């Protein structure tokens, strides 16, 4: 198979736009093996023994950081977590200086989250260790995009030709952007909907995406739906009037879920606002893979580590 020739060794993971379909398939295939390891009795493999990974989070996170940390530990790497508080003005200096410090300690990879779009690209220019972007502002969250692909493929056994709806605040969502980059490469038919103030104005120009004025059209016959988190601070900016109205017009409830295929996969990057973007009954219904996805997150991140950092590929 062509996959044998692909190597991701030493590659920065900044955005899924940098990855080919073959590379994404390789990661997803590797993640299948990794998931078996997580389910097994011995969760400490020597694949990355002697490697050190730093998670450097300038923004709070529970599940992504923990997932990256455990993924590294399962593969035998040493993982150190740094939670850096960002000051308001001197972010550039603190990022640069922090990276130099971490680099000087001889780490092999830096998993970084930062509120500035482009921070991961900037870090990759500054620092020698591999940079894995765990979210940079509204730009990219590639491992989340990969884990969505993994979950959908695991259930549907394919990606090509599926219809996926992404609903909500596309404008501020790095997950939506990583979905668009990753899913389009895998032949998924992408539909988005949300308040027009929360849809990037020129997204309709993108031939890979169908933008809908109403959420029902996006959901119709969808194989998977990703519901995005609504943030209340957007109301202050005048982008939508109230969570109540949002829930009524755009929230995913039983009636709207019924528009999708019967076996639709329901995803949400978390944490959820139940009663706003998603009703509680839908959040915990049998179509919901929101909790089940967490295991997949660790598997996908283990796959990334293995492909990028392991000495020998096989």
């Amino acid at each position, binding site marked *: 198979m062509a996959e044998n020739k692909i190597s991701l060794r030493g590659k920065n993971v900044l955005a899924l736009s940098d990855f080919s379909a073959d590379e994404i398939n390789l990661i997803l295939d590797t993640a299948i093996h990794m998931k078996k390891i997580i389910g097994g009795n011995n969760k400490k493999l020597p694949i990355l023994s002697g490697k050190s990974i730093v998670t450097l989070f300038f923004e709070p996170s529970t599940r992504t950081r923990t997932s990256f940390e455990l993924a590294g530990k399962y593969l035998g790497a040493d993982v150190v977590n740094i939670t850096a508080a960002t000051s308001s003005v001197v*972010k550039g200096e603190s990022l*640069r200086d922090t990276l130099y410090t971490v680099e000087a300690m001889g780490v092999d990879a830096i998993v970084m989250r930062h509120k500035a*779009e*482009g921070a991961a*690209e900037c870090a*990759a220019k500054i620092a020698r260790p591999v940079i894995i972007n765990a979210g940079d*502002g509204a730009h990219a969250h590639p491992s989340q995009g990969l884990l969505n692909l993994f979950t959908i493929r695991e259930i549907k056994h394919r990606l090509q030709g599926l219809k996926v709806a992404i609903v909500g605040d596309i404008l501020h969502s790095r997950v939506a952007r990583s979905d668009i980059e990753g899913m389009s490469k895998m032949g998924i038919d992408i539909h988005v909907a949300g308040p027009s103030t929360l849809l990037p104005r020129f997204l309709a120009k*993108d031939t890979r995406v169908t933008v809908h004025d109403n959420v029902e059209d996006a959901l119709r016959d969808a194989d998977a739906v990703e519901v995005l988190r609504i943030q209340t601070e957007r109301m202050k900016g005048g982008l939508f009037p109230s969570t109540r109205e949002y829930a009524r017009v755009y929230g995913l409830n039983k009636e709207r879920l019924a528009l999708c295929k019967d076996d639709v996969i329901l995803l949400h990057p978390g944490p959820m606002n139940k009663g706003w973007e998603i009703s509680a009954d839908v959040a915990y219904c049998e179509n919901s893979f929101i909790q089940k996805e967490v295991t997949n997150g660790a598997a996908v991140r283990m796959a990334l580590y293995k492909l990028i950092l392991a000495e020998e590929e096989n």
Partner: protein
Amino acid sequence: MKILLKNGRIIDPANKIDGKMDLLAENGKIAAIGEDITVADEETQIIDATDKVILPGLIDMHVHLREPGQEAKEDFVSGGMAAVAGGFTRVATMPNTSPVVDNAALVRGLKKRAAEANLANIEIIGAVTKGQKGEELAEMGDMAAAGAAAFSDDGHFIDSAKMMLNAFSYIKPFDKIIINHEEETTLVEGGVMNEGLKSALLGVKGRPTVAEDIAIMRDILLAEYAGAKVHVAHISTAVGANFVREAKKRGVKVTAEVTPQHLTLTDDMVNLTDTATKINPPLRSKNDAEALFAALKDGTIDIIVTDHSPHANEEKDREYIYAPSGFPGLETSLAVMLTDFYHTGKLTLTELAEKMSLNPAKIFNLAGGTLSVGAAADIAVVDTELDWTARAKDFYTKCKYSPFDGKKMKGKAVLTIVGGRIVMKDGKITGGAKA
């Protein structure tokens, strides 16, 4: 001191000259233009200009030389060297400095600094409002008396329509021009690039074209109402250019400038690793760039400026959204215009001489812009056929960032004469404070 340029192609749109001739400069002035000028004395420096083009020295009405207070970004010497390296003999520096140039004492001090730097002529643009805060008028009358060339709150849009109208009304009897940065503040807040598909995919806040369009329209209407002159800085939108075109037709005293970057680059090239593409107003769409060229060609847009905006390299070398906007343009401007517009047959050398020298001198009532006998000997000798590659690291400006870095150029200034002194020859600085 005399300089005799032999056998060059002299282009001087002010006198409708385009022909092979000699030019004699004496005592800082142009002494003669004609065929086969000969001089008997030995002190005259004779320069063979065969196959070269002799233009009136280029004039750039929009540069940021960063004095006072921001000398880590640029100063009058580094900026002056960049200017003459690019064929510019006169540049006008913007007042968004630290402190803001908003009083006559600062204007006088800067003029002294310009004389000390002794490279290109440096014109001082004063602020329209105190501290460029948009709240109170700056002492524009005093600054005009001290020799300020024009007024601008460049870098900032004057939010209050009332303040803008007051400024237009007040300046009118002084016969000076207000140059406006046209981006409505609330629409561009937090924006780092053009709002388009590219900003949508990168997840960064956009600066929509409509922010510039409404700002241009507002200021055209206010200037028209006040009967004052307004000059639209670094215009970047198709709609905005059309507003200027329509206003000119009905007699509004509006002029406009455009940069080489807005004519040739688009937001397609923006990526989050290269902060050189981050400018305000931002690089727009292909449609905008084409409309801007059409407007430049038909005279709607009067002049070409660089918006030379250097920053300290460590300021530019950071996350895209936090990097300051701007890059230095003095050393690439003429070359880009020659490469992309002259060599493609879109603009003649005469048109370039108008838009890069004659028109700014006329509009702002400045010396230069012509090779008339008796005029200051401000001259750019250009080798239009010289192939070279732009290398930002080799720039004279302190800022080594440019979206034109690596661009293959055809054409360059090879000799710059300011006030009868040779200040640049074959890329080497031969005059000024450091030489």
